[in-house]
């Protein structure tokens, strides 16, 4: 337990009167990549929202580095070292690409002195953003917008990255590249909690896997064990696909 950077205990909550999380419990070992998989509508994104203070919980506790962070504001969580890249499209359409990225650092206020350097580094990781830095963000293609979001999310050098389905809309090459970035972050000691439907590729680079269903943790284990569990494969990894894909 002591090596868990994030610990989620018995979360209960949902939208309005509807309960989505039914006592979700898991933990994220420090310095690992942990991937959450599960059917559509299992409550994966909802868990992330709950961790990041965007959903009022009825019960449960979220602990980050041993400290209770349940219900903290986003600014506090960001300064504590957690960042969150949500699912879907999350840009400021009428600002330029560069300004969009810059905004990733506002939570730190004036503490960041090397902002220009960090932005340069981000643009190096995602070169397409550099060529479009002065364009309005709404003109980016779907995949480019996702890259923008990831770059923005990493600007604060977080200790824990919550990232919700980064691969949606990214080309295979970009998925590889993004996963490489995540691996690199892990190698520098950053912990990553990721949701992926592109589960095979994700689990391959992960240390741990979590299976979530109906708002509950069905399984938490080493990533390769999850990947090779025949029942999990049948139920959640599209068992049939493996044959045709080969």
């Amino acid at each position, binding site marked *: 337990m002591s090596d868990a950077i994030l610990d989620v205990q018995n979360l209960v909550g949902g939208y309005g009167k509807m309960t989505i999380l039914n006592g979700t419990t898991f933990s994220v070992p420090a310095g690992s990549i942990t991937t959450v998989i599960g059917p559509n509508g299992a409550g994966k994104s909802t868990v992330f929202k709950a961790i*990041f203070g*965007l959903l009022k919980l009825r019960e449960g506790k979220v602990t980050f580095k041993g400290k209770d962070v349940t219900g903290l504001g*986003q*600014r506090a969580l*960001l*300064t504590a070292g957690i960042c*969150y890249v*949500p699912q879907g499209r*999350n*840009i*400021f*359409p*009428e*600002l330029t690409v560069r*300004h969009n990225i*810059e*905004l*990733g650092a*506002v*939570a*730190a206020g004036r503490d960041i002195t090397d902002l220009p350097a960090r932005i340069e580094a981000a643009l190096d990781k995602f070169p397409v953003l550099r060529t479009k830095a002065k364009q*309005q963000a*709404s*003109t980016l293609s779907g995949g480019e917008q996702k890259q923008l979001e990831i770059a*923005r*999310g990493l600007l604060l050098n977080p200790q824990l990255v919550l990232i919700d389905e980064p691969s949606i809309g990214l080309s295979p090459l970009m998925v590889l590249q993004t996963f490489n970035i995540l691996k690199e972050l892990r190698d520098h000691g950053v912990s990553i909690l990721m949701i992926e439907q592109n589960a095979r590729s994700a689990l391959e680079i992960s240390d741990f896997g979590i299976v979530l269903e109906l708002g509950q943790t069905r399984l938490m284990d080493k990533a390769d064990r999850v990947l090779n569990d025949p029942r999990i494969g049948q139920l959640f990894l599209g068992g049939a696909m493996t044959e045709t894909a080969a």
Partner: protein
Amino acid sequence: MSNLLDLLIAGLATGAIYAIVAVGFTLLWQTSQTINFAQGEFVMLPAFLMLAVMHAGAPFWLAILIGIALSLLLLGLGFKMLLVDPMLRHGVLPLAIATMALAIGIKEAAKQFWSAEASPFPSIIPGGDITIFGRVVALQSIGVLVLAILAVLGLTTLLNRTSIGHQMQAAAQNPTVARIIGVPVERMILLTFLINAFLVALASLLITPIYLAKFSNGEVLGQAAFIAAIVGGFNQVRGAIAGGLLIGVVDNLSAAYVSTQYRAAVPLVLLIAIILFRPQGMLGRPEERTV
């Protein structure tokens, strides 16, 4: 020909007044995606606050300071907490309607607690005229124009060149995401409305000597400014200047050369053409890509 020049100058003078009120519309849109139909009343009210303070015996300068402070408190903080907070999430219309009701409320209150009569209001700019190129121009008009230009320059710099400005725009364009990346959305919105409250207090100070303090001033002003903001470009603060001046000038020219009876309509019809031709307004930015 000389006649035309007179009309142009007069039109610019009136246009400057519209412009300074219109700035508020564009500011609120760009930084909170709200429309305040009580903007005209917001400009009407601070003058009454200042008059009330003067009535209580304070000197003019003190009345101005207290007026601005009250305006920040009522039209900035109060407005934000009471109306904007509960309604912002629900889109433009509920708040727009609430501000229509607010406009009625402010107007009636001014009438009830002050009077239905117009009252003269002292000017911080000397009341005289100056002659430029042989034309007589009221100093007050020049003051209004200068303030309008300064406000637009200042706000444009703030919004486009500073981090605070970007945060304000981010909070408006996508509040949830703004929150996620740590923008203090609440504070940004408050700042927006405080700036607006400060602006209307200044505008009130400059316009009221020309318009006289009267409870109904807001109607004409608010409507003209709303139109000016749209024609200029709703999503760009600088559009307010262009729109305001254009309306002022077109209004005068059409009254002189087309019809006084249809004076109110001629500019509108002309401007519809502009809007249909350039749906984003003269200086506005096209709205985002949709697919």
